[in-house]
């Protein structure tokens, strides 16, 4: 058992400073002295711990001392068998889960609204995706969790699949039935992987939805830099007791930098300690802020700040109360319009707006007065810009038609065609659409007429389309040599 009051990486860096070790190693800025402008901007304290791996500081690729202990403390705090500090964002944690579980030709079951990093990992390893249509809420126009019966059916249809992958919670705070999905996966000899990017607080707060490790999942990717308070790009990968952590480390080292940033590592270490010691009170406060804002926003009228009342014990198994998701269609404005108004007219930047919703990210860093500003601005937006209530938009789910593995398609010989000429071709690249952030096409999928129509429509509406080499998505790279 470790002591959660310890912060070994942080302490080792402090010792390094006190000992005034003379640097004749990289980084070349030498504690900032070689780059006064940068030091002035970021601060001397920050630059003085931007150091290279060395004996007293351990080595991220092969941890044996302070990093090892810090990872053990994190594993313990999260109730995991093993943890890895990641410096390539949660993207790297998600990709490690995929790469260490499936290989070329293996099947992996996943919801269509996975993060792009998951499908990118499939391009790297050659596994084949089996998509589950996430249930959608017609009133809110958001993708929900995975229904247990959908998972069961998909497992029965694909008994050879190696893993089930779940997003939990979603960006909007929607949770799936992790315990039963994990049970199903394990009963069928499949690994259970969880993208828990938005769920760090599930491990520390009270009365929270169940966390991946508590549900018995094999691996989980936790964005410490979201609700956990660490620096952007730092993340933690958690492993359950039946995962071979040494193999996972090898997979991580395939792509991870050998110069892991000690700014990121120490931020993980300090944040873990803070969560372990103060997490409960912290997230109580966040929950109170979110609950208060929800009740005040509901009082404005028109807006729908949703919460646990949505729970249907299946596709919405639970709801993350720290999330402040608000449907805006009741005041006649699209979420993206409210998002823009808040920023342009009221100097308030929120996390995102989609067709029908906005999400304001509430955290321990918030102040009461800023929460009041957000609520009052929403009241003003309704008063000044509100229109007739808009009918909810049915978000059409385009069933993907997977013809070959993303890897085969991505690396295949391809030709570029006008979008309108792509019907029936096999796509060799991604088309992502923001909002809502669900892929329209992934490499290896058949391009149908309705997909082309959807892309054209999304472009007209001003959605941001990303992925293809042709940045305005006027052309697509398609599989050469046959339909």
């Amino acid at each position, binding site marked *: 058992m470790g002591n959660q009051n310890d912060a070994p990486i942080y302490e080792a860096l402090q010792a390094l400073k006190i000992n005034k070790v003379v640097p004749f190693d990289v980084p070349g800025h030498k504690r900032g002295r070689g780059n006064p402008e940068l030091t002035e901007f970021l601060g001397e304290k920050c630059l003085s711990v931007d150091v290279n791996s060395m004996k007293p500081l351990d080595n991220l690729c092969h941890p044996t001392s302070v990093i090892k202990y810090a990872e053990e403390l994190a594993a313990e705090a999260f109730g995991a068998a093993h943890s890895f500090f990641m410096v390539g964002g949660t993207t790297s944690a998600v990709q490690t889960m995929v790469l260490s579980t499936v290989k070329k030709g293996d099947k992996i079951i996943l919801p269509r609204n996975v993060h792009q990093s998951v499908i990118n990992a499939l391009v790297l390893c050659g596994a084949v995706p089996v998509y589950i249509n996430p249930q959608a809420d017609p009133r809110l126009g958001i993708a929900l969790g995975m229904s247990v019966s959908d998972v069961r059916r998909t497992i029965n249809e694909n008994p050879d699949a190696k893993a089930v992958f779940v997003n939990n919670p979603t960006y909007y705070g929607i949770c799936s039935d992790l315990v039963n999905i994990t049970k199903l996966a394990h009963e069928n000899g499949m690994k259970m992987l969880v993208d828990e990017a938005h769920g760090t607080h599930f491990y520390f707060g009270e009365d929270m939805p169940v966390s991946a490790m508590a549900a018995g999942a094999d691996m989980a990717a936790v964005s410490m830099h979201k609700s956990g308070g660490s620096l952007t790009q730092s993340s933690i990968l958690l492993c359950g007791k039946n995962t071979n952590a040494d193999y996972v480390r090898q997979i991580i080292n395939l792509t991870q930098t050998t110069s892991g940033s000690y700014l990121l590592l120490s931020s993980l270490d300090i944040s873990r300690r803070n969560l372990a010691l103060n997490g409960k009170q912290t997230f109580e406060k966040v929950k109170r802020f979110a609950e208060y804002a929800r009740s005040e926003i509901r009082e404005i009228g028109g807006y729908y700040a949703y919460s646990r009342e949505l729970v249907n014990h299946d596709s919405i198994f639970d709801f993350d109360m720290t999330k402040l998701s608000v449907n805006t269609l009741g005041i006649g404005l699209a979420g993206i319009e409210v998002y823009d108004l808040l920023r342009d007219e009221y100097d308030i930047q929120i996390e995102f707006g989609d067709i029908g919703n906005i999400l304001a990210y509430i955290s321990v860093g918030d102040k009461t*007065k800023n929460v009041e500003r957000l609520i009052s601005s929403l*009241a003003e937006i309704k008063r000044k810009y509100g229109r007739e209530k808009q009918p909810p938009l049915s978000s059409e789910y385009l069933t993907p038609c997977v013809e070959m593995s993303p890897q085969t398609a991505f690396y295949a010989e391809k030709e570029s065609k006008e979008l309108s000429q792509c019907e029936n071709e096999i796509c060799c690249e991604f088309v992502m659409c923001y909002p809502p952030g669900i892929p329209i096409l992934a490499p290896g999928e058949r391009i149908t007429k309705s997909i082309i129509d959807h892309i054209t429509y999304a472009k007209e509406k001003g959605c941001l389309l990303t992925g293809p080499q042709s940045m305005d998505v006027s052309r697509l790279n398609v599989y050469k040599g046959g339909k």
Partner: protein
Amino acid sequence: MEDLWFSEYHTKNVKLSIRVSSQLHHEESDYQSISVYDSPEFGRFLALDGIMMLTEKDEFIYHEMITHVPMAANPNIKNILIIGAGDGGVLRELSKYKSIEHIDLVEIDERVIEVCKEFLPKTACGFDNEKAAVHIADGLKFIRHIENKYDLIIVDSTDPSGPGEVLFTKEFYGNCFKALTDNGIMVNQHESPFYNDDAMAMKRAHRCIVQSFPYARVYQAHIPTYPSGHWLFGFASKKHYSVEKIDFEAWKSLGIETKYYTPNLHKGAFYIPRYVEEMLKEDE
């Protein structure tokens, strides 16, 4: 007397110092630090987060100008909301008007009121006003729930750096607009045009008010202990109150005693320096 001085930085390079004879009080409230000092030149004075809010010697200027200007502009004001003003000075001036029916005063920090009642009776006597109801609340939250109720809103805030920050936002001014009646007027502490940082806050406030009200002007006063001494107030309304058309005879007939305010000064206060006019024009 010992050589004790209270200094306030007006910019990074300019400070005003007042010799202090004693510190009467200091505390950290939930919102800010609250101090009261006594001084040979300015009498007692209140500082919040180290910034002078009022001194006994010159507070009359600020309090008269933030109240009598709107009260003279519309003699039919009955229902008033004051935001901030925990020292009681605004209430004291408004007590001079028999025609007022009700006043709500919303102060976020109860400790400011308590400290002023104990150490600054010359302004805190305003709390004796029987028409006034005191609410300890966040001004922005309080006003969010109110529509078409007040004839006058007086925003007596601290600088935008402290708890008063929300009182300089567009959403706050927009909610004030909504809470006012059709003849309603909003008057606010509008910072100073002189030093750069103050001028930025002043311009930002003006921009937000212009976007929320059809009529928005500023007027000025000379307040010795505020940075540069040159201070502005905002005057915003739903209908046009032309200074030239105000019935000052009606105001004079009320027989209200003032030390700074006069009808002539009222008119003159709206004639502002050219550089300030130009600053404001940029945002209109």
